[in-house]
């Protein structure tokens, strides 16, 4: 029922469409990509975009198909963003529920951990984690989880505290509910919309992080089809083949906007509190 109500919001629908499109393209990339994204043809470098041709979006400096790389780039972006955001959510939410529900020493301890991690600018902590753990999508996901759990934890802990202080939670305890049951039945459902919203926003953030890290050439293999990498390359070929830069930039925009619209629409009522992002 709630889902239906969400769907009626134009923003959620637009966001959902954008995300579904990117997801579908990413999943189907091997089937629909016109070329092997790694296959280079040094006789066909920097072809401009031409829709009817064998390379609809042209080729890059190594003669690789930009469209194919774009599609496989979506695969990489989502394969970092989805597990990264989910992992961050699981870790952050578990700690937030523990902190918010148990309060006291647990809360202080977790609060301190959040405090310490948030003293690092998130992107910088991710960069040095990637540096320490080594490049590669798995390590990037791990870095995102290890840093961005605080986003969930901070906001959610606050929300959990608010819910826990509501009398129906006390009532459930008085009526004989165990802690776990109280948490599961009286607290968690009330925070789910927030969690879903945060998750959608986090996926957008993770897509940008993946793009940034690959733009800097730090996160993924240099020859892997990644949007950030494509943008970095496309800068050089801007005058010969502008699609090299514009296509991945547009892809990032659509994906991030999709996730943001989705999250924003879902958390419409919470929006003001979310953008403030303070607990």
């Amino acid at each position, binding site marked *: 029922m709630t889902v239906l109500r969400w769907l009626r919001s134009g923003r959620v629908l637009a966001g959902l469409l954008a995300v579904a499109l990117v997801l579908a393209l990413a999943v189907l990339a091997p089937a629909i990509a016109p070329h092997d994204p790694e296959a280079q043809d040094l006789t066909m470098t920097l072809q401009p975009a031409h829709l009817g041709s064998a390379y609809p979006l042209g080729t890059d*400096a190594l003669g690789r198909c930009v469209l194919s790389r774009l599609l496989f780039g979506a695969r990489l972006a989502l394969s970092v963003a989805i597990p990264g955001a989910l992992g961050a959510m699981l870790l952050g939410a578990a700690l937030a529920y523990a902190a918010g529900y148990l309060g006291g020493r647990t809360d202080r301890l977790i609060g301190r951990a959040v405090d310490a991690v948030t003293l690092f600018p998130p992107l910088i902590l991710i960069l040095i984690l990637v540096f320490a753990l080594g490049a590669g999508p798995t390590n990037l996901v791990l870095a995102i989880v290890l840093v961005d759990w605080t986003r969930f934890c901070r906001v959610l802990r606050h929300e959990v505290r608010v819910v826990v202080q509501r009398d129906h939670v006390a009532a459930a305890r008085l009526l004989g509910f165990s802690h776990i049951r109280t948490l599961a039945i009286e607290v968690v459902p009330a925070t789910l919309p927030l969690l879903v919203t945060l998750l959608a926003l986090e996926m957008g953030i993770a897509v940008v992080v993946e793009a940034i890290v690959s733009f800097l050439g730090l996160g993924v293999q240099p020859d892997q089809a990644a949007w950030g990498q494509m943008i970095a390359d496309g800068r050089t*070929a801007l005058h010969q083949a502008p699609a090299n830069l514009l296509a991945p930039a547009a892809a990032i925009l659509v994906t991030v906007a999709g996730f943001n619209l989705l999250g924003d629409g879902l958390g419409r009522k919470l929006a003001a509190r979310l953008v403030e992002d303070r607990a």
Partner: protein
Amino acid sequence: MADLSRRALLGVLVAVPHSAPSAVQGYPKARDAVTIGWPGDVAGWDPNRRFVPDAQPIYKMLYDQPLDQDPRLNLVPGLAKAWQLAPDARSLEVELRDDVTFHDGTKLTSADFRWTFHERIAAGHEVDTARSWRKVVDIETPSATRAIMRFGSPAPTAPAWLAFLGSFVVPKHYMQKVGLAAFGAHPVGTGPYRLAEHQPGTRIVLERNDAYWGPKPTMRRVTVQIINNPSARAAAIESGNVDLTVAMPVRETARLGHIATLEAELNPITRIILLQVRDDAGFADRNIRLAAHHAIDKQALSQAFYGNAAVPLSVPVIPGSPGFLDDFTFPHDPDMARELLSRSGYSPAQPARIRMATTRGQFPADYDIARAIVGMWKTVGIEAALEVLDYARYFELNRAGRLPEATLYSFDNAIGDPEAYAGYLLAPHQPYSPWKDTALGEKVRGLFDVPGEAERIAGWRALNREAVEIGACMPLLRSVQTLVRRKDLAYRRFGNGWVLPQTMDWI
């Protein structure tokens, strides 16, 4: 010869009509200042410390070398008015100028020469010149202007080395007084410019040294803007943020050449592009090395990235230089590569795995070439993981024995001698060479000590061939310098690609 007519030379080399005031330029420009867009920063200000070819022109502004080169790369006097190599190549006598002062006002003497080429090396300073001058056993200084270098073994290329990488004379008294760390922050040389400002990774500002002993540069102030990204360099020259820049992709250079106020140049230079390889790890197997070399389509690389302006190479020297072999080619042969790999049990389905390093933006299309090679290897059954480094890092890694199996490298040989190619690229004790196998190494070492010129050259030619045949060296292309400058900026073009602000002038 020292007072080479610079103006006359400019007239010959740079024939540029007077152009209308630049439309690109947003703000007025001083007539005696120039801004250069440079791809990389210096690794510290001790000029003896690291051999980074791209930093040489910058060091040449601040410091002087005992010998210099003219645009056609002949040795000419520098700080030394004259020099004489003994017939047995075991000593070299130089006569220093007596009118040279360092930026701090003290006079340059043979003591500084001795300090630079012997004492500080003997004192264990961590400098790369310790390798180029390892044969020096002593330097005698009979007078303030005379110095005699004594070598432990014949050093036929010693004069050339006095004009080559890292051979800049540094002030003994000042360095000893302030210490190495302070010298790094406030360097003092004898060069035509002194350091005014340095923001690491961003910009270097140099002011003219009005007490310079040589011809006084026209440019009072030189700003070197460090811009790693080639497209950012292109944008910078296009928008007028810099007046001259180098190492842009060939296509971008061509495009910029069409802009009315800009002049684009493609200059073949004495550098070669090659893969430096290790003799161990994933490349321990000779089959894999040779397969890797056979798999590379050098002509395609030249076509895709240099518009065919870069000549494919089979030996690590440039055509026309003494060490070149006309009768030897190493073919592009993917089938042979597959065959060699299958002999060692590898195939595209079961690829040999290696690591490969490349610079990014140090020379035109370096990163693209590296990725193209990775792609070529992939089709024959070599899977290479690519990483990016810069030259300074290359030496650090090599010192630690941690370079990848293959590194895309551009080697500068401003003096053109085969020794300075293979001798340094393949000698296990040299900072350049990741090839540590002593069998080849001993041969290289031997060649350094051959005093007879013909014998020496023949030896190097044979070595070049052998190195390629055993897969110790994978020469790719003769490097092409891409350079874009404002039409009204003249400079002296050197065969080794030096871009020296002291030779620049507005016309």
